[in-house]
């Protein structure tokens, strides 16, 4: 088999090289397609960026604007990352190409979008669940109970930051009446007023 051994590594080597090329080849477009600019290349996404600018997640704590991928694409490269990139990527392209991108059914999209935002991305910036979003004040007693239920210390909400924290970045029309969205809605209405003038 030794003789085969000499021939074999060459075949495996080629395979390995091809694999590396394929992965590198795939990684680059995957990485490139995970940037805000890429998202904005489709016109229908413009509205989402406008909303993001007025949302509590417009900028992070050192005033850098937050990109789409920081929430919608799982941080750690892995199976989730691949699933999101492939499943959502394919869906986006399909809708952009064959769907009706100009008037998307945001009410139907909301549950799907929330489904694919992983907690890991939220926890990337908000590590301490006993502190408020900026990590300064202690959260309210009710908030504490909720997070204990999230961590399954007291009761069990069965996962999901976005299961409770709604409209953190985007605010469709039908959600603007809720009292917890009042500031966000007011900022948005000011923005549309400016644009109309």
């Amino acid at each position, binding site marked *: 088999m030794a003789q085969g051994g000499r021939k074999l590594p060459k075949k495996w080597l080629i395979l390995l090289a091809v694999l590396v090329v394929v992965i590198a080849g795939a990684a680059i477009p995957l990485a490139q397609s995970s940037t805000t600019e890429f998202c904005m290349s489709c016109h229908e996404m413009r509205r989402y960026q406008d909303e993001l600018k007025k949302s509590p997640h417009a900028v992070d704590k050192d005033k850098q604007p937050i990109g789409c991928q920081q929430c919608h694409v799982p941080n750690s490269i892995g*199976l*989730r990352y691949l699933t999101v990139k492939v*499943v959502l990527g394919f869906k986006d392209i399909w809708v952009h190409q064959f769907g009706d991108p100009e008037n998307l059914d945001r009410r139907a999209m909301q549950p799907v979008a929330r489904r694919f935002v992983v907690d890991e991305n939220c926890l990337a910036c908000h590590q301490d669940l006993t502190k408020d979003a900026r990590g300064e004040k202690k959260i309210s007693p*009710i908030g504490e109970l909720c997070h204990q239920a999230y961590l399954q210390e*007291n009761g069990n*909400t*069965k996962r999901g930051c976005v299961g*409770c924290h709604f409209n953190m970045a985007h605010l469709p029309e039908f959600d603007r009446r809720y009292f917890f969205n009042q500031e966000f809605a007011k900022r948005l209405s000011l923005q549309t007023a400016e644009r109309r003038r």
Partner: protein
Amino acid sequence: MTATGDNGPKPKKWTKRILWILAVLVLAVGVAVLYINLAFPKVRCQAVDHLKSPDQLGDCFQCHLKATPKVAQDWYESKHGVMLVKCFVCHGQPDGKGSVPYAVSPDVNTTCRKCHDPSIKKMEYKYGLKPVCTDCHPFHNNSLHHKAYVKPVAKKTVQ
């Protein structure tokens, strides 16, 4: 791969291979779908088992106004909210000791029938019984027609 007689009956070998490929494909898709449903659950918050804080337990609305503000406001502004049909009437008591069984999403047929039995019978006669009430009548925000009610939720408590 030891080659059997390479001029064996061609079609049988091909169909076997296609079948194999199909099986693998189906398996792959099945695994993918299973994985997606596991890794990315449809409903992100199911309150499988309610928190255990007895003193807080009584007043569902005060706590849920903070914990799940959307549902709380939907209920408050719905006709059930105006009529003070409070949470325990349909959902029961989280510790399960109440006379109404505890359910995050109560069984629509028995719960609605408690009050709306006559109108369900009338509907049943005229249009036939639709199994799930909430298909047409959304439970929390059964909307109220025109300006009949003060819409926005008043801040229940200052804090």
